[in-house]
């Protein structure tokens, strides 16, 4: 028995490593860096959450910075009362309802409107993401142009009639298909999106853009070319 034990220990270690390796292979949560809180979260933001919930009478446990069952119950209760999605996860909406900003969102993203109205902040956000994904290496004007193409499509009968419809149209944008679209945009991308929404269109009504040095469908070259900006050709 004694002679065998090193093997068992060894095999145990190997197994453990294998399981670890498999665990690492799981896709990395893109929200990991953001202080979205859920069961098991620890730290100062949890304490903050607990204090806030306690002061509003949802939580009566200890403020210990550990998201456990008591905190969970309080969060769920809070979400139900405030008509948020009841999932026990403290994300953007729940943080907003608590009066804080979700660090996962950017500073200048317009917060959900507090009055009965719409800020249209979704539009800017989606456009900025697409600009970042498709044209982050392009000159500023080329970024405005990409956002303008999306808006031109929305107004065209041949394309979906909403910004989300255009952006998420299957096979329309490679960056949406491969997940680049989910990366956070920069200040410049937001400004480009905002300019396009406010009417700027350096493409003069273009519905397509493509990079001639990359493989594109031959059909695209049958479009009338308006102009070239940076690495992109814009066509109607």
């Amino acid at each position, binding site marked *: 028995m004694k002679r*065998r034990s090193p*093997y068992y220990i*060894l*095999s145990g270690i*190997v*197994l453990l490593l*294998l399981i670890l390796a*498999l665990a690492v292979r799981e896709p990395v949560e893109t929200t990991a860096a953001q202080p979205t809180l859920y069961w098991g979260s620890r730290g100062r933001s949890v304490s903050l959450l607990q204090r806030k919930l306690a002061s509003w009478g949802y939580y009566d446990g200890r403020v210990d910075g550990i998201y456990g069952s008591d905190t969970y119950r309080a969060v769920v209760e809070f979400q139900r009362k405030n008509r948020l999605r009841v999932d026990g996860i403290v994300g953007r909406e729940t943080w907003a309802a608590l009066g804080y900003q979700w660090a996962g969102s950017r500073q*200048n993203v317009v917060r959900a*409107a507090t009055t*009965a*109205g*719409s*800020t*249209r902040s979704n539009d800017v956000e989606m456009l900025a993401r697409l600009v970042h994904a498709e044209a982050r290496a392009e*000159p*500023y*004007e080329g970024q*405005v142009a990409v956002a303008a193409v999306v808006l031109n499509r929305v*107004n*065209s*009968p*041949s*394309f*979906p*009639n909403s910004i989300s*419809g255009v952006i998420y*149209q*299957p*096979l*329309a944008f*490679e960056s949406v*298909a491969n997940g680049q679209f989910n990366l956070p945009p920069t*200040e*410049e991308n*937001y*400004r480009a999106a*905002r*300019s396009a929404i*406010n*009417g*700027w*269109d*350096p*493409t*003069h*009504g*273009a519905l*397509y853009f493509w990079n001639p040095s990359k*493989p*594109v*469908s*031959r*059909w695209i070259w049958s479009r*009338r*070319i*308006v*102009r*070239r*900006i940076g690495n992109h050709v814009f066509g109607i």
Partner: protein
Amino acid sequence: MKINRSWIIPLVLALVLVGITAYWGYDQYREKEQLQIYMGNTFQRSFYELVERIEEMQVLIGKSLVSTSPRQNILLLTDVWSHANTAQAELNRLPLAAQTVYDVSKFLSQTGDFAHTMAKQNADGKVLTAEERQTLSELRQHAIRITELLHEVENEVLAGRVNWVEMVKSTRRALREEQERDKPDINLDDLSDDLSKVPTLIYDGPFSDHINERKPEGLRGEEVSRETAREKVRDFLDGVDGANISVSEGTTVNGRIPGYNFQVETGNGVYSVDISKKGGFLVTLINNRKVQSGRISRDQAVKKAQEYLERIDYTDMEPTFSEIKDNIAYISFAYQKDDIIFYPDIINVQIAMDNGQVLAVEAQNYLMSHKEREIKEAEITEEEARELASATLDEIENVRLAVIPTSSLREVFTYEVRGKAGDELYIIYINAETGNEEQILKVILSETGTLAL
């Protein structure tokens, strides 16, 4: 015996490893399989929805053609519009290449839009003309043809010859390998041929063909050469040291407003400047400079923008809207003459809030629509307009004359009535000739500016 035993354990270990890997692989495979089925189902649902909606649409158009009651006709045509919209949205959820769905999408948008316009005409008491009925009937024939073709596709899908998920993969593969696919995604090619016979549709709606065929009305004067345009570039710059700039040779812009584009390097950002061939007007100007701080006030920014527009000969422009975001003021101007404001003639300006520099100008709307207009006397008085609006508004703040563009870019002469309903701010546009309500905007005030929806 003891020697034998020593390799049993590594063997067992190896088997365990193989087992775990196999299990993991199978698990991954199963998960992928499930996701593919899920995706396939989503696509298939969209497809069925598409077929159903087009069939429904076709039937409704048929009914509207035999209906004799305007009231019934309005309901039927509004339903056509709603089904066409859904069909268009579902079609665009399918994994088909842009060129495949381009024509069908357009057909669905236009048919719905046309039906909607006809419904509105009915509501205004105008009966469909023989010509309009003919158009509806033609559109219906195309819808029937599309349904037939879609049923063929449906059979392919049911027989397992068309797989939506495979289609996504092969299209992306084809794109990567820079080739056309041997076979089109699905047999929609006949459809495109068929739809090319759809007549050009000109009617009073946003998807009417006249929108894309518009020609600029605001360009006056002689055609200018690229050299002349290049000399004018400096006139359009603001807040830059004249000695320290370099203007590119210029390229041709082949858009609605034919022109030249110049790239200008300055000590205060890189400009892109579009100048029209006809008349040498400033079309679009964009500066990429970052603005880090805000020192000037909103009023100063608006004043600065207005002075700039006057300097470059865009005169009589009145500020209508402003918003400040990230140290940039977005200000909208509309043309004003004889106390009438013309909303089709819009010029947008961006001002840097650190030094008041004009960062961007967009005058395409103005150049497309600005012209000498003959305005008739208003048929109804301001008092009457007030009266009409006060039925729903609790408090009226301001009334003035305005020309507004409809969704089909037709111009309507109206009274603009601003007022409050409860706490909410609304702008109601009342036709100055008929007294009809033309448009309602909801105004949202925030710290950054006003938003009209």
